[in-house]
């Protein structure tokens, strides 16, 4: 059980790695989703280890939040593709001007 717990922390860190290394918008969304998914798995596992059902309920709530997040993110992606014609985030440096 301990090795599953530790490896799910590595899965969370890999989600952060995708966000840091990839230069494209859709990969950043994928990294956020992977991090949130492994985080809810960690909460669930912690609730099973400690014998407290609160962690499982937090996992259910995180599911809803990540679904709302990806809907907004894909809306932003479609708007950016309309405006700039690309999704590489290096091109969006002058967006605030």
């Amino acid at each position, binding site marked *: 059980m301990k090795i*599953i717990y530790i490896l799910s922390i590595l899965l969370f860190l890999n989600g952060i790695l995708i966000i840091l290394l990839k230069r494209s918008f859709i990969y950043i969304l994928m990294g956020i989703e992977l991090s949130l998914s492994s985080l809810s*798995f960690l909460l*669930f596992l912690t609730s099973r280890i400690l014998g407290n059902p609160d962690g499982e309920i937090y996992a259910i709530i995180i599911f809803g939040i990540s679904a709302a997040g990806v809907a907004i993110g894909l809306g932003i992606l479609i708007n950016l593709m309309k405006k700039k014609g690309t*999704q590489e985030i290096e091109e969006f440096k002058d967006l605030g001007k």
Partner: protein
Amino acid sequence: MNEILLFFMIISLLTSYYIIFSKKIIYSVLSLFLIFISISILYLLLGSPFLFISQILIYAGGIIVLMLFAIYTVGIKETEGINLKEGIVAFLLNFLIFFLIANILKNYPFPKKIISFKMDFIFDKLLKDYLIAFEIVGLLIVIGIIGTFLSVREK
């Protein structure tokens, strides 16, 4: 039992490394689908059928399909690979943080047998103690979808 859990965990880890090194977006999204299915099987094996079903419904059925829809709509196929210098530094930092956390958890006493809850107990708690949080999450999803619709539509 523990070996099956380890097998699915290692599948999801290897697939996450594939996402980092892959350049084709469709393959990466389908790999993410494999990760979500593996995590949902972990939920089932650890004794929570509700989280198994909701993981498949929300992540595999909702998020992946939405991502594939958006990718095909805007027509993007490939992306640039990772920068080698940044990649080495980020991987080293990643493993450093991981080994620090693993070192902390090394001496923590984990129980041999995990505690399972009955489904009606969880729902009783969700709809009594956490009712306002649950409703606000539902409201958040509706507001997110309406906001996305308003921002994407043609004027």
